[in-house]
C-alpha cells in the first residue's frame, strides 16, 4: 500500500486546515504547461505563483520570508533572477518570457537614489541564496536600461538596474535552493517531478524567480521553470524519471496541467479535457485518484525515428539559412527557419578581422503584419571601445542608411508618441570608462512588416590590466545579449522581451602558461650569456686600420 489511510487522513486534514487559511492570506497555484514547438521541440513550463494581499512583512505563510524581507529592506518594486543553461532560439516558437543563458538579475527600486549600492546589497543576497558567484554587482557589467520595460509596472525608467552574466555556471546544486522556496518543496505537487540530474540532460532549461509589488500593495512571487526537450513522443517517466505520484500540494488552490499546440489530443493517455478559458488539460485533484499520473503522448503518424534521438538535423528539411544559390543575404527571411507565429527574428554577431578592431551587428526582422515599435538596449563592456559615430542603421527596404534622430531623453520621461515618432531614434548613449562602466546605447525603432534593420557599431579592443584577466582568459570574454523590448500599447500587442545571442569576444591575452614563460626567460638569459661567451672565445684579434694615425687592437667576432 503506497498511501496508508492515515496518510490520506493527514493530508485531508492538512488541506482543509490550510485551505481555509490559504484563502484568507496567501494564494498559491501550480501549473504545468506542455506546448508543442517547432523542430521537434517540446516545452514544459512549470509555474508556481504565490500572491500575498496586504502583506505585513512580519508573519509569512506561503510567501517565502527571505524575499519578503528583501523587498522590505531594500524598497524593491520588482525583482527577477534567472539561471539558464542553453540558448533559446525564437525559431522554436513563441513562449512568452524566457531568459538569456547564464545568470540574469533585474531589480527595480522605488526611488532613483543610491541605486548602485542598493543593487549591490540585493545581488549579494540573491547570490547567497542561490549559491551563485558574486559578480552580479560588478560595475563593469551591470548597468541601467532606461527604456526597456521588463514588467507591467508603470514608468520604471531610471529606477531599474540590470546585470547579466552569460558565463555563470548553472548546475544541480542551484536547483536545490530554488525548490526549497516552494511551499511543498519537492515532496508533493508538481515539483515532485523535478529531479535535477534529469533536468540537466535536456536541451534548454531555465529557472527564474520573480517578485512583484503592485500598486495595490499585493506581493506576488512567481517561480518559473522552462524546459525544452527534443522528442517526438514522450512520457513523464521518461523525461522526469518518475511519473507524478500523489499527493498534490495541499497549499495549492489549483494544480493544473495545460496542453497547447498539439493537433491531436487523442494521442494523449490519459485524455485531456476542457478546463475553461479555451484551455485543454487536466485539473489534478488530491491523491490523483490513487493512481500514478504518467502522461503519455505518442503521435499516430510515426516517422523513422522513434523516441529520443539526437540526429534530427537531417530530418528537418531545412537549409540552415541559405537557399540553393548559397545566397545568405536573402532579406533575412528564410521560411524554413521561422515559425508560424514568430513575431521577430533576431541575430547578433561580431565582425572582426584581426585582434585590434571589430564591430557588433544586430539584425532585427519584423515578421508581423503590422508595424512594430521596438526599443533596443545594448551594453558593451569597456574593453570594446565603441565609437558611436560609426553607429549606422541600414534597412533592406531602402538603399541609403536610415537617419537616426537624436532624442536624448535622459532628462525627461518621454511618452510613447515621442519615442516612436521617427523610424529610428537614439534615446540614450552612455560612453564607457576604462576599467569602469560599460558603453550603452538605446534605440527606438519602428519596423514595417517584413523590414530588416541592421544596426552596426564599430569598436577598438582595449587592453586589460594583468589582474583583470580571468583565469581562463584564452577562452574569450562573454558579452551579454542585447535586449529588444516590444512596446505594443497601440497595436494591442503584448509587451514582450526578447534576447539576442550572447557573443564571445577574443581579446589579445598574454600567455599565461608557466612553462612557456619559464622556457623563454631561461633560454633568453642563457643565450645572452652563452652568446657573448662564445663570441668572446671565438673572436679573432686583428688590426683595424683607420684613416687617422693610430692602429687599435680590436677583437672582431667571427661571423655566424
Amino acid at each position, binding site marked *: 500500500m*503506497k498511501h496508508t489511510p492515515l496518510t490520506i487522513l493527514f493530508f485531508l486534514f492538512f488541506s482543509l486546515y490550510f485551505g481555509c487559511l490559504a484563502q484568507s492570506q496567501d494564494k498559491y497555484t501550480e501549473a504545468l504547461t506542455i506546448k508543442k514547438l517547432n523542430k521537434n521541440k517540446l516545452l514544459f513550463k512549470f509555474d508556481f505563483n504565490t500572491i500575498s494581499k496586504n502583506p505585513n512583512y512580519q508573519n509569512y505563510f506561503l510567501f517565502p520570508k527571505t524575499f519578503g524581507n528583501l523587498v522590505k529592506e531594500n524598497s524593491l518594486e520588482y525583482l527577477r533572477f534567472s539561471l539558464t543553461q542553453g540558448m533559446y532560439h525564437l525559431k522554436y516558437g513563441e513562449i512568452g518570457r524566457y531568459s538569456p543563458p547564464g545568470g540574469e538579475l533585474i531589480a527595480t527600486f522605488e526611488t532613483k537614489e543610491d541605486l548602485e549600492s542598493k543593487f549591490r546589497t540585493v545581488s549579494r543576497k540573491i547570490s547567497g541564496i542561490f*549559491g551563485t558567484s558574486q559578480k552580479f554587482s560588478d560595475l563593469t557589467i551591470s548597468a541601467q536600461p532606461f527604456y526597456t520595460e521588463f514588467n507591467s509596472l508603470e514608468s520604471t525608467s531610471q529606477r531599474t538596474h540590470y546585470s547579466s552574466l552569460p558565463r555563470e555556471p548553472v548546475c*544541480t*546544486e542551484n536547483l536545490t535552493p530554488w525548490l526549497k522556496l516552494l511551499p511543498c518543496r519537492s515532496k508533493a505537487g508538481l515539483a515532485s517531478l523535478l*529531479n535535477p540530474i534529469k533536468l540537466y540532460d535536456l536541451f534548454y532549461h531555465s529557472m527564474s524567480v520573480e517578485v512583484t509589488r503592485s500598486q495595490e500593495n499585493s506581493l506576488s512571487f512567481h517561480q518559473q521553470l522552462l524546459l525544452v526537450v527534443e522528442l517526438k513522443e514522450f512520457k513523464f*517517466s*521518461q523525461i522526469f*524519471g*518518475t511519473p507524478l505520484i500523489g499527493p498534490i500540494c495541499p497549499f495549492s488552490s489549483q494544480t493544473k496541467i495545460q496542453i497547447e499546440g498539439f493537433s491531436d489530443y487523442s494521442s494523449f493517455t490519459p485524455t485531456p479535457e476542457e478546463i475553461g478559458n479555451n484551455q485543454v488539460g487536466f485539473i489534478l485533484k488530491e491523491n490523483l485518484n490513487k493512481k500514478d499520473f504518467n502522461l503519455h503522448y505518442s503521435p499516430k503518424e510515426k516517422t523513422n525515428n522513434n523516441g529520443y534521438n539526437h540526429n534530427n538535423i537531417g530530418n528537418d528539411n531545412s537549409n540552415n539559412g541559405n537557399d540553393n544559390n548559397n545566397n545568405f543575404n536573402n532579406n533575412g527571411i528564410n521560411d524554413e527557419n521561422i515559425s508560424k507565429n514568430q513575431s521577430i527574428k533576431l541575430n547578433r554577431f561580431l565582425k572582426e578581422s584581426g585582434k585590434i578592431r571589430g564591430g557588433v551587428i544586430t539584425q532585427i526582422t519584423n515578421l508581423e503584419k503590422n508595424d512594430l515599435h521596438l526599443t533596443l538596449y545594448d551594453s558593451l563592456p569597456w574593453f570594446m571601445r565603441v565609437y558611436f559615430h560609426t553607429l549606422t542603421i541600414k534597412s533592406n527596404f531602402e538603399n541609403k542608411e536610415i537617419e537616426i534622430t537624436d532624442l536624448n531623453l535622459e532628462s525627461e520621461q518621454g511618452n510613447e508618441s515621442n519615442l516612436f515618432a521617427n523610424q529610428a531614434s537614439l534615446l540614450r548613449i552612455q560612453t564607457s570608462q576604462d576599467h569602469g562602466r560599460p558603453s550603452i546605447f538605446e534605440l527606438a525603432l519602428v519596423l514595417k512588416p517584413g523590414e530588416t534593420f541592421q544596426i552596426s557599431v564599430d569598436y577598438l579592443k582595449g587592453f586589460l590590466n594583468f589582474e583583470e584577466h*580571468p583565469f581562463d582568459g584564452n577562452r574569450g570574454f562573454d558579452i551579454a545579449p542585447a535586449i529588444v523590448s516590444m512596446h505594443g500599447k497601440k497595436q494591442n500587442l503584448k509587451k514582450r522581451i526578447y534576447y539576442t545571442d550572447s557573443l564571445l569576444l577574443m581579446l589579445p591575452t598574454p600567455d599565461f602558461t608557466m612553462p612557456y614563460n619559464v622556457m623563454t626567460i631561461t633560454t633568453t638569459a642563457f643565450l645572452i650569456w652563452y652568446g657573448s661567451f662564445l663570441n668572446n672565445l671565438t673572436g679573432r684579434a686583428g688590426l683595424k686600420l683607420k684613416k687617422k694615425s693610430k692602429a687599435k687592437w680590436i677583437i672582431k667576432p667571427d661571423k655566424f
Partner: protein
Amino acid sequence: MMKKQNFSYIFLFCVLINLFFPVCLSTRTSTHNNNWAVIVCSSRFWFNYRHVANALSFYHTVKRLGIPDSNIILMLADDWACNARNCFPGKIFNNKDHNLNLYGTNVEIDYRGYEVNVENFLRLLTGRHEPDVPRNKRLLTDSGSNILVYLTGHGGNEFLKFQDSEEVSSKDIADAFEQMYQKKRYNEILFIIETCQANTLFSKFYSPNIAAIGCSELGENSYSHHFDSSIGVQVIDSFTYFSLNFLNNIKPGDSHTTLEKYFNSMTPKQIRSQPRLEFFQFQRNPRDVLVSDFFGSIHEVVSHPINNYTFKNDNDNDNDNDNDNGNANINEKENVNNNDNFQLKNQFQHTEKTQPNMEQSNQFQPRVEDEAIELSDNYFRIGMIILIFLIFFFSIIEKILT
C-alpha cells in the same frame, strides 16, 4: 560485630553507587567542542577532473561522519559536473565503476569558479572578509574548533597552484595559521595536502597544535590511481583512493581509530610516493589523536546517505541513456526494481575487505564509544556484585565456623 556491620554498610554503599553511576572513563583526550572542514580543489580545466573527485570524496566522507554543511567550506575552482565535456551531466565519479555519484543534489559549494583564488583562500583562513560577505563563505571557528584543511591540486616545491595561474606558498599558509592561532580561531588543525612534492608545503609551519599529512616528498610526484575510459580522464588520485579505503570503515562516533593508524594504512609502495605525518608543537600526545577528532563531529549526529532525493525509475525505461547504478532509493517502497541496482555498492571493488553498507547509517545508531563505556561499566558492576556476595558468603562461613 561493629566492624562487620560497618564493613557491610560500606559495601552496600559501594554497590549502590556502582549501580547508578558509570565508572569507566572515556579514552578520548581531545579538548575541542566543534568541528569544521575546509576542502579546496584548486585546479581548473577538464583534465584535472581527479582533483574535484578527490575533494568531493573527502567532502562526503566528512559529511557522513557527522560534520554538517554549515561547518564545511567547499571550494571548487571549476564546474565539472555540468561541463559540456561531461558525458554524464550532473555526475562526478571517483571510480571507473561509476558506483557513486559524488555530485548529487546534496552538495553545497561555497566558493565556485573564479572565486577560488589565493586571496579568498587566505581571507577565509584569517577571517578578514569584506563586510557583506555572506555567512556561508566565512570560517566561523572559535578556540574550541578542530579544523580539517584538505587541499588538492597541482603543486611543487613549497607552493600550491590555484586555477593554473596563481600560487600560494608555504610561508603564506604558515603565516595564515599563525594569525589564526593569535586570534584563537582554532583548537587543532589537521592539514592534508595532496599535490606533487606536497610535504614541502608544511615545512614552514610554526604555530602550535597543527598536524600535517602530505603525500609526496620533495622531488617526488603524486600519482593518480586509475583512468576511466568512458569519461576520458583520470578519476582519482592514489592517496585519496587509499585514504577512502581506510576511512570507509570508520563509523560516526568512532573513538579508537588513531590518526597514526590511518596514516600507516597507506604504504609508499601503494601510493608510489613517500607520505609524511608531522605534528607541530602538539599539546597532547600525538598517538592519542583520533581520526574522528577531525573527520567527524563531537556531537551525536544522524548521518544521511549521500543520495538524498528519492525518485523511482520506471520499469520500461528503454530509452533511458543513463546508467543509474549509483542512485539509492532510501525510502523503501514497493516496485523496487532490483535490476536497477538501487543499493549503493561497495565503493571500491578492488579491495578484499568488506565495506559497510551505506544504508545502515540511515537509522540513528548509538555511538560506538557509548557502547564501549556501557559494556565496561556492566563488567565492573557485575564484578562488584560478585565481590559483595563473596564477602557476605565468607562472613557467613566465618560465623558458622566460629
